[in-house]
């Protein structure tokens, strides 16, 4: 006797199940410019590292003739594999099988791999490509979504969770990605919305295309739901592979250390920033002037461009950068930029990634729309996130640090470990023009030549306060440094902070203003 017959039978069954929705459905998928679920998993993981589970799971739908339908793998592939030799858990919805719709067993497969990921403390990657709830299964599919959200929440801050939107992701399904750490979208392929164009048209009479309503750029630029935008699936997979090098595998570990490399552009740092505080520059050039290899992975590049967040390495170790961007909206703080930075700070804090803050901002964005959009509570998120963070925190004030923004951008007062300032730094309640107009209002009004007096008083204020030395004299900043010293100072501060111990009062959880 031999195993041969059984093995052949197994192979036959596997081959059949691995076809997913079959040739025609796969052709359709390819015609839409999309890869199949299996190809996607292969493209993300190390070669030949994927191990699949639950290939033979069958759906449990009995109504509406569903019992006569065979849905291979119930429309989702789950498994484990490796990236750079390190284990990860992954699932990919298979649109070729009944539109990747989510029924009870489909959801059970996803929650099984989620449970594994959390227990084994490995990253979870979820590839979404699904028409939504499987209506034929009724409340069972809703139950499935709920059980996924519950696990996303439990895993939050313990293991990295990455969502890749490679097709439709509509209705309740959108909330799983929204609960995860990083959402990747691809132009013309990703579509995310709660109610689609059809419903919006029939109920509200508003006509809009899918791409305009919930396409990749909309979520990258307008809603802030997406963190990484790519033009193709291949580019998207490269972004995932790059991101994963910067983050630790779970919250009990540190990110992998890389060989130290000097920045490529360090010598230019003084040429990047104009001395005149009214003139713009690209803060990312300053970041690249201090990071290893001048490498910087920007996150949410298109959303709230007035603040820049992302990962780089300093002396081989991952650092999270938060930096005002004078090139956009003068680098002001507003609802969106506060929200964007606050969540990133919490990510870094949860995963033991030190924070470097680069500050150059004139204050908060003025406007009725901002006030009415709740800039108070959104702005408060930033204060909360910094104050709560116990990872090493270093701030470099480059030019303007005015008013509430000075406090919010990781000031000493919120618990920063090290605060440095360039000699061009201006730390004050507001800019010299505004301050002089208030403080010297009487002198200016009563002067024979108010304009001349105003200029004189502005200069007086500038000389007195528009510098880093007043704050340095109080110990609010630790040292005024030359721009070229910045990288060395950062390296040393992070070295000194490597074993930092900082605690917060014991509590179930805080109540941040979200």
């Amino acid at each position, binding site marked *: 006797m031999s195993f041969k017959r059984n093995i052949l039978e197994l192979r036959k069954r596997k081959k059949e199940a691995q076809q997913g929705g079959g040739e025609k459905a796969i052709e359709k998928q390819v015609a839409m410019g999309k890869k199949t679920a299996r190809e996607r998993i292969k493209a993300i993981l190390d070669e030949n590292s994927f191990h699949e589970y639950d290939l033979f799971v069958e759906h449990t739908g009995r109504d509406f003739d569903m019992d006569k339908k065979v849905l291979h793998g119930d429309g989702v592939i789950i498994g484990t594999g490796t990236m750079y030799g390190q284990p990860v858990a992954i699932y990919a919805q298979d649109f070729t099988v009944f539109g990747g719709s989510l029924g009870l067993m489909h959801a059970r497969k996803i929650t099984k791999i989620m449970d594994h990921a959390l227990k084994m403390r490995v990253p979870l990657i979820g590839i979404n490509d699904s028409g939504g709830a499987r209506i034929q299964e009724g409340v069972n599919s809703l139950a499935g979504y709920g059980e996924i959200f519950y696990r996303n929440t439990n895993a939050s801050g313990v293991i990295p969770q990455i969502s890749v939107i490679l097709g439709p992701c509509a209705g309740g399904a959108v909330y799983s990605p929204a609960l995860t750490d990083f959402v990747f979208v691809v132009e013309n392929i990703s579509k995310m919305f709660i109610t689609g164009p059809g419903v919006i048209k029939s109920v509200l*009479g508003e006509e809009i295309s899918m791409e305009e309503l919930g396409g990749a750029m909309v979520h990258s630029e307008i809603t802030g739901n997406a963190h990484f935008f790519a033009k193709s699936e291949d580019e998207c997979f490269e972004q995932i592979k790059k991101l994963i090098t910067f983050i630790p595998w779970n919250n009990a570990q540190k990110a992998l250390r890389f060989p130290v490399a000097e920045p490529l552009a360090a010598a230019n740092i003084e040429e990047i920033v104009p001395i005149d505080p009214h003139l713009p520059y690209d803060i990312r050039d300053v970041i690249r002037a201090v990071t290893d290899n001048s490498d910087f992975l920007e996150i949410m590049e298109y959303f709230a461009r007035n603040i820049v967040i992302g990962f780089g390495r300093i002396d081989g170790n991952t650092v999270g950068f938060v930096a005002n961007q004078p090139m956009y*909206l*003068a680098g002001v703080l507003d609802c969106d930029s506060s929200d964007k930075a606050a969540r990133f700070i919490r990510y870094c804090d949860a995963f033991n990634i030190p924070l470097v803050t680069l500050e150059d901002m004139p204050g908060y*964005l003025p406007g009725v729309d901002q006030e009415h959009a709740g800039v108070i509570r959104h702005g408060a998120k930033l204060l909360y996130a910094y104050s709560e963070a116990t990872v090493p925190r270093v701030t470099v004030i480059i030019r303007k640090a005015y008013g509430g923004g000075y406090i919010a951008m990781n000031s000493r007062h919120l618990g920063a470990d090290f605060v440095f300032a360039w000699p061009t730094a201006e730390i004050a309640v507001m800019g010299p023009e505004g301050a002089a107009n208030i403080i010297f209002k009487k002198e200016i009004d009563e002067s024979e030549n108010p304009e001349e007096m105003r200029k004189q008083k502005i200069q007086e204020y500038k000389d007195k306060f528009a510098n880093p030395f007043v704050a340095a004299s109080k110990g609010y900043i630790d040292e005024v440094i030359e721009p070229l010293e910045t990288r060395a100072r950062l390296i040393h501060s992070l070295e000194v902070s490597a074993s930092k111990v900082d605690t917060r009062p014991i509590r179930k959880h805080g109540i941040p203003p979200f």
Partner: protein
Amino acid sequence: MAENEKEYRPFLVDQVPYMTLTTKKYENRKKWQPSNPKEICSIIPGSVIDVFVKPGQKVKSGEVLLILDSMKMHTKIEMPYDGVIKAVNLAKGDRIPKNAVMITIK
């Protein structure tokens, strides 16, 4: 950088102009307008099930002006204070967008 420099324009924060770029979202933001108490606007799109008032009609505060079908719900739109109807800008069966001026009061 050189290309961008042309597009930088002054942007006021605390009366001080900073040279910078703006974002699409910022440019498309809604300008605030004070609400006019003499206009009754839709706060949600919908279709008109019935209208009960005509121009020139005296209406007491709390009387129902019309019924709007929005989000599977029939919502009564009531008169906010005693007054006389100046114009009715819709009719039974009309579909109206959000922020449409439905009725004006003299």
